[in-house]
């Protein structure tokens, strides 16, 4: 038991290192939970730990990765035994350790993906990692690579033939294909994860769990830098926009309600005084009418920062109720109003797509020109910035060494009630190379917003107390 206990504590410690808070009370809970469940069942141990220490769904992936490392499903290459249980698979390993032909394995993988049997797929992943994933890095030392496996099997290229089989003669191009595609994609991703997890397990046996667990953990989507986010990260972020907006809105209304309220509500006070014999002991007040600012967003949508601009625009529109008016302007080297694409109740992602194809954003060569864009903005839309406006500029201020339009920006900032520049670059890089950040920072407050967490903090600061 003591060995298990040490393992548990080391595992919980690894969670802490990965950024998941585990309190002592939770350690005690998980220890008690271990006593209550069937320890021979690995999955139920996983669920028990998850119930005790995992308090946020976003941490789930990290938790699973580390759990697989600290409580591995198998030790060494116990593949042969596993295959004996299954006559179908047995013939493929040849018995004498000779790796089978990749095309045979691909056929097998295709069949497994078609069936969708998770258990078989997992055993297959274990076997192929053993066969294909190994590389002798130094004499006597082995290394394991998931890309070797995935490259040789390349499951994505099986898509066409899998689709064919799943659709079984149904019409292509419609709903049925979409649904089938979705199912296959899910299974392929599952297989890739299995392979990666298996590779981590083999590596951990070689180099020690601590070493591997340090590198295995991916940052959470909300902490991924906008500038480095992959397509998957951005999709995940976009999915979080509405929950995030809702969370922010709830917090803001709560804050408003807590603040000292406004004029005396005579009717409610008198009504409440009846309970105390007509003496108004508790007074009731009307809530303050919340002050709602107008928001004007001016954003750089050129390639490098488009992801950031899109996410921020989506958030601004999801928070529409918190403002009297939201106007959006986009620019690359010239500026155009894009408010018209964002209709109430409409789809923001569609609006963004329409915006990039229909709005007049390019004037000269399609490289960012902040100076010209700011001048155009000030000239064409003089009514966009007024004394009630909060002006937000989004962009990395990488100006290709062109004129900055600093003076015009200074005037705009003076006209606005608040003005902020959100910069997705780390503050350390501001002013380096063709970045005009330092010039702009002289006239406008520049805020570093590299990830969703920082953006959330900023929005809370922007909105009225």
């Amino acid at each position, binding site marked *: 038991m003591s060995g298990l206990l040490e393992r548990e504590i080391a595992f919980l410690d690894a969670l802490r290192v990965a950024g998941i808070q585990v309190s002592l009370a939770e350690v005690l*809970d998980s220890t008690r939970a271990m006593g209550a469940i069937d320890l021979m069942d690995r999955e139920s141990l996983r*669920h028990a730990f998850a119930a005790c220490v995992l308090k946020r769904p976003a941490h789930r992936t990290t938790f699973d990765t580390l759990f697989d490392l600290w409580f591995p499903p198998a030790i060494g290459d116990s593949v042969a035994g596993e295959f004996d249980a299954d006559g179908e698979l047995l013939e493929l390993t040849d018995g004498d350790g000779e790796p089978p032909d990749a095309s045979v394995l691909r056929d097998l993988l295709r069949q497994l993906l078609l069936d969708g049997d998770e258990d078989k797929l997992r055993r297959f992943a274990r076997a192929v990692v053993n066969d294909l994933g190994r590389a002798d890095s130094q004499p006597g030392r082995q290394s394991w690579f998931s890309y070797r496996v995935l490259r040789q099997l390349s499951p994505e290229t099986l898509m066409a033939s899998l689709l064919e089989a799943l659709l079984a003669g149904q019409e292509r*191009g419609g709903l049925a294909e979409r649904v089938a595609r979705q199912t296959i994609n899910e299974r392929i991703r599952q297989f890739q994860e299995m392979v990666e997890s298996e590779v981590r397990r083999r590596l951990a046996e070689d180099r020690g769990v601590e070493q591997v667990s340090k590198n295995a953990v991916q940052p959470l989507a909300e902490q991924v830098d906008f500038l480095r986010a992959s397509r998957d990260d951005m999709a995940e972020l976009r999915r979080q926009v509405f929950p995030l907006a809702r969370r922010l809105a709830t917090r803001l209304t709560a804050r408003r309600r807590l603040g000292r309220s406004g004029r005396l509500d005579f009717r409610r006070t008198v009504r409440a005084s009846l309970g105390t014999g007509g003496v108004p002991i508790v007074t009731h007040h009307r809530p303050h009418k919340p002050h709602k600012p107008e928001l004007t967003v001016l954003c750089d949508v050129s390639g490098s920062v488009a992801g950031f601009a899109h996410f921020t625009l989506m958030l601004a529109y999801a928070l529409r109720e918190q403002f009297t008016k939201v106007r959006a302007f986009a620019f690359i080297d010239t500026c155009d109003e894009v408010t018209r694409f964002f209709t109430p*109740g409409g789809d923001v992602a569609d609006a963004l797509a329409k915006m990039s194809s229909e709005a007049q954003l390019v004037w000269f060569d399609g490289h960012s020109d902040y100076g010209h864009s700011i001048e155009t903005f000030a000239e064409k839309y003089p009514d966009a910035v007024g004394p009630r406006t909060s002006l937000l500029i989004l962009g990395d201020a990488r100006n290709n060494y062109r004129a900055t339009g600093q003076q015009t920006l200074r005037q705009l900032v003076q006209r606005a009630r608040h003005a902020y520049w959100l910069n997705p670059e780390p503050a350390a890089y501001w002013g380096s190379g063709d970045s005009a950040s330092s010039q702009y920072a002289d006239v406008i407050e520049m805020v570093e917003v590299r990830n969703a967490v920082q953006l959330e903090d900023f929005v809370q600061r922007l909105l009225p107390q």
Partner: protein
Amino acid sequence: MLQPQFASVADVKERLSAAGYLTDDAIATTVFLADRLGKPLLIEGPAGVGKTELAKSVATAIGAELIRLQCYEGLDEARALYEWNYKKQLLRIQASKDDDSWDEIHDDVFAEEFLLSRPLLTAIRRTEPTVLLIDETDKADVEVEGLLLEVLSDFQITIPELGTITATRRPLVFLTSNATRELSEALKRRCLYLHLDYPDAEREKAIVLSRVPEVAEQLAGQLVNTVRALRALELKKSPSIAESIDWARTLVALGLDTLDEQAVKDTLGVVLKHASDHERAATQLKLN
């Protein structure tokens, strides 16, 4: 005072499915632990995945009474814990004869008789098996969480005039939350945590089949796969199990036995509740 209701994880599974709730391993293990360790269980997840239903089914499965505290903005002590029935107290004072001394009346007025029990106190005082459901905890104000802490960690309530009331038999406590706001660390630490997400295809199909037995198995499979494709789109509100079940009912009511494009197009309103989601699904699934 800790009296576990379930013998094993398998027992949880069996009895919950007898009560009409199909679990998976994660749910069954967590419920089992909540029962065994005597800790409250916090269930989070998107709307319509069966958070409240789980608590109800556990109550049915163990034959316990369900006491429900629905949280809302402005919920306070007087609605959650207890309240003094001051009208009755006033009557008692007015009805007192001249020779009653003040001390006597004072003691008398703050007696059990004048206490109005609210859900939390009721659940603590019961001697029969009880399931306490604190629904939509995130809707309540932050102060309410503070009020829950004593109940959830020690299963006791302190009433200044009466003293501390401790549970004679621990109720099984379920808290649900839609995560509209982050609950406090203190509250989370006192609870076991279960994140209920959309189920995998197999379980969702089984759920649809058990809730809408009239639907053909093949149609249920089609329906579940379509719903999963919809969830993969970036929608404002992804359809949840509740919507899948509604959809199955709709298809049965319309007498459709296969889910082709026309059928999806006609009944999409059952699963998607935003006009923009509707358009988006129609274009991406090429329904037009």
